[in-house]
């Protein structure tokens, strides 16, 4: 029996029922391993496997969803999920007055597998633990009593999916994700500082196998990270005022996530996430006619970039991976969308962004890889600093907050450096900056070239009710912004 059989059977049975406009079924099996070490202790060593069926049905224009755990060949579980989904859709149809319609999408067939070099689940556990222990040892070397804690972590996922729809789609996917990183905490009295590498939020996230861990050279970078954390203990707080700010990718990725990724989600723009995270200032009438940022700002959504966290073959309603411009030369031009929102907004086709965390969650519009394009004629990071007379360079996200329309934000970083006359000078601690999204991006006067481009990502972007976490990607070069309010929150 193939992984697709039970999903096909559930869809075939449901599609025949009176009033069913559309239905699809997804089998999803997730294998996750989390290895988190703290000093000489194990914070988490967990291997989790969960599998089951999630079925969606559109009944008289109203959605229903249900999910049941089960193995790929558990037709009874798939059938129970189908029946329950129909029951929930029927209940919704008694309330709704507006019928959902879907944008056209040709039926899909095929399979997709993330290319990886080394299957992390075949790497001996003792080897993985020893690799992380070496990172801890490197962070701890020097025995400075002000180093309070060192952590190293890695996480691996294999996701097997089968998707079938009443329109004839039948696709299989085998997706891989890896994440790895380290963090050191230093304290002196009541002053406590942390540094993370490649960034907090799980470290570097990528569609890669175990080869990711070695590629990061965490051991080789540990000493510098520790020394930076120690130096921050006596660094002055970031001064308050308006200034020029350079953001490096370990912070700019978060800026893109919060102030471009979320507001371009079309479900938010249409009010469907009001009950939790809020709406968006990028309302439908602004598409194509609203200045989001300066002409240097180009942001795209794609699920095609090799190795990026959200790269896949199809989204969770069978829309093939594609590339969609969101902001072109500063102009807001596109949305992250699904077949439903594409039809409602007249977008023509879905951008392929409907994704579910696991079998037990309905697919909702999620970021894929939302990235800032480098400027081929732009500067390197070193040139960008050299070209800045007076400013602050910030990196590595520490705190994040933005209002319900994604306008007023305040982000904090782990580290900053003062820039004077084209040179990095003092280290500054607890930097925060704040702004209004389009004004902030409007102040972008330089975007780096590809030399310093980094693809980051997050494993735990939260959205939906019930809450779903999702892996998303954000690639970017460094960029410079004028007239930014900064401070330390003191």
């Amino acid at each position, binding site marked *: 029996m193939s992984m697709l059989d039970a999903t096909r059977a559930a869809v075939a049975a449901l599609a025949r029922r009176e009033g069913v406009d559309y239905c699809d079924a997804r089998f999803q099996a997730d294998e996750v391993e989390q290895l988190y070490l703290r000093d000489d202790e194990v914070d988490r060593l967990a291997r989790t496997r969960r599998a089951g069926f999630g079925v969606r049905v559109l009944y008289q224009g109203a959605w229903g969803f249900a999910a049941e755990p089960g193995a790929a060949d558990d037709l009874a579980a798939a059938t129970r999920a189908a029946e329950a989904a129909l029951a929930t859709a029927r*209940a*919704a149809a008694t*309330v709704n*007055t507006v019928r959902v319609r879907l944008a056209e999408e040709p039926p899909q067939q095929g399979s997709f597998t993330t290319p990886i070099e080394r299957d992390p689940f075949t790497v001996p556990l003792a080897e993985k633990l020893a690799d992380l222990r070496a990172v801890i040892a490197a962070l701890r070397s020097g025995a400075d009593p002000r180093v309070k804690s060192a952590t190293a972590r890695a996480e691996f996922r294999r996701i097997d999916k089968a998707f079938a729809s009443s329109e004839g789609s039948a696709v299989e996917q085998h997706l891989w994700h890896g994440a790895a990183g380290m963090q050191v905490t230093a304290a002196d009295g009541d002053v406590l500082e942390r540094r993370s590498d490649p960034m907090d939020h799980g470290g570097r996230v990528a569609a890669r196998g175990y080869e990711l861990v070695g590629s990061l050279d965490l051991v080789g970078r540990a000493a510098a990270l520790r020394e930076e954390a120690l130096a921050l203990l006596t660094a002055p707080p970031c001064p308050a005022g308006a200034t020029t700010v350079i953001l490096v990718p370990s912070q700019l990725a978060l800026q893109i996530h919060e102030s471009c990724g979320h507001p371009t989600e079309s479900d938010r723009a249409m009010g469907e996430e009001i009950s939790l995270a809020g709406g968006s200032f990028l309302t439908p009438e602004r598409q194509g006619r609203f200045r989001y940022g300066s002409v240097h700002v180009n942001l795209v959504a794609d699920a095609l970039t090799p190795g990026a966290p959200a790269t896949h073959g199809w989204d969770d309603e069978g829309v093939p991976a594609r590339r969609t411009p969101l902001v072109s030369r500063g102009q807001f031009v596109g949305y992250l969308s699904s077949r439903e929102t594409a039809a409602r907004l007249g977008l023509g086709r879905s951008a392929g962004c409907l994704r579910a965390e696991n079998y037990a969650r309905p697919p909702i519009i999620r970021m894929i890889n939302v990235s800032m394009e480098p400027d081929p004629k732009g500067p390197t990071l070193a040139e960008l600093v050299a070209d800045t007379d007076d400013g602050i360079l910030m990196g590595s996200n520490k*705190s994040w907050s933005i209002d319900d329309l994604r306008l007023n934000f*305040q982000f904090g970083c782990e580290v900053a450096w003062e820039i004077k006359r084209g040179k990095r000078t003092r280290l500054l601690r607890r930097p925060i900056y704040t702004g209004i999204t389009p004004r902030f991006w409007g102040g972008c006067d330089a975007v780096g070239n590809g030399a310093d481009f980094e693809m980051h990502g997050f494993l735990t972007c939260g959205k939906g009710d019930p809450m779903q976490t999702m892996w998303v990607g954000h690639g970017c070069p460094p960029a410079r912004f004028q007239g930014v309010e900064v401070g330390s*929150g003191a």
Partner: protein
Amino acid sequence: MSQPGALPLLGPGVLLEALTRLAREPGAHGADELELSFEGGVLGTSRLARSQLTQTGDVVERMLRVRARVGDRVGAAHVASLDDAPAAIARAVEAARALASLPGPAAPPLPEPTPPDPAGSPGATRLATAMARSFRGETAELGAAGRADLALRALAPVRAAGCNAAGVVAVAVREQAVASTRGIKSYHRVTSAKLDVIATRDDDDRATGRASTVVHDASRLDAAVQAEHAAETARRSADAIVLPPGEYDVVLEPPAVAELMEWLALASFGSQGFRDGSSCLCGRAGEQLCDPAITIYDDGLDPDPDALVTPTDPEGVRKQRVVLIDAGRAGTPVLDTAGAVSLGHPASAATGHAGALDDSWALGSVAQNLAMAAGEDSFDALLGRVDRGLYIKRFHYVNGLLDTRRALMTGMTRSGCFLIEQGRVGAPVQNLRWTQGILAALGRVGGVTRQRRTVPVWWSAGGGILAPALLLRRFRFTGASSRD
């Protein structure tokens, strides 16, 4: 699922028989000890947006965690089915053996059974009351049609007020069972019903109101009254004025207070913040941190009829009442077994605060039944003490990681912010950003209400925080929102 009497709960008989049988013979699997912990149930959700039900779902989820001790190491594995328990045991044993190849301290012992309280004792009564109160059969069987009915009752007043409605009706029924070689054998089940209604004026999309609650017993939800509250706030929020940043006295409704407590818990109330020294309580036990009017505790067996209860944690350890801030003085953290040992306590010092099995990101112990003690004031008394300030219904997107030792946080106001002048609520105010050390703010308390409300938390379908309203002096606002 949606049919009465068809709940997909496995029940205490099936679960405890299966888990106990496996835990009894660890040697058969190459382990010295085993602990099997199960959580599962069904979550029914109906989401509203634009006055339509945009998402409805009934999902069945199950999770079994196996912890295996081999020598002085403990390995763990999670699976989604009891049928996969043997495979999970094998993986847990493999993990324990792999850990043995590395240097490091012995793993904490697996928990011992909680000694039973004598029949008729206050402890036994508290437990029995909590067990009885936490599960309602009618709530468990509400189904998609019942949720749709609640949604319809919420929609009518919102539409009548010239607003569109968003929100959610979420009903969960969950069971938890634990068995171990050491003799733990526990089972409980819980129902919860959450109703969250947001009204947005048709003629001003910045004018919103919100009312939300979570209860064990769905019959306590009054959808129409809740919706009217949300619509009334939206009605009063049109044509908001802009206020300059600065310090204002604030009267915070329970949802705003609860969000501050949530971030205090995340950053400071668990064992993790004590291990690395980042908690605002760490090293300050007994020290006066804030106003004596502030007491924050966590109590899974809270007898308050509005509190949500959870008798035991996923380690099978009975929930204890832990006072985190006691009349303004720093208290002690909530603990799971590993957290207790890592802080130098015996494993028996665990307070029943291990995180949920399906919580893939939280580390260490978690305060999940938070409450702030009630005060003596009426809500109107708080307003009456303010010459010029702000009445704030709730916050949005708070982040409490700026400086956790000071509990420095930032966030926005949302869905109801009004000027208070001479003790009266007046003009609506455009949303404001604040950046404030919360310990300092809780040191300037002007009043605490007698009445408390249970506020749903965003990270759990059935979780909630019991909070009063507060008057805080000189709260620091650092920016205003704007259209663009």
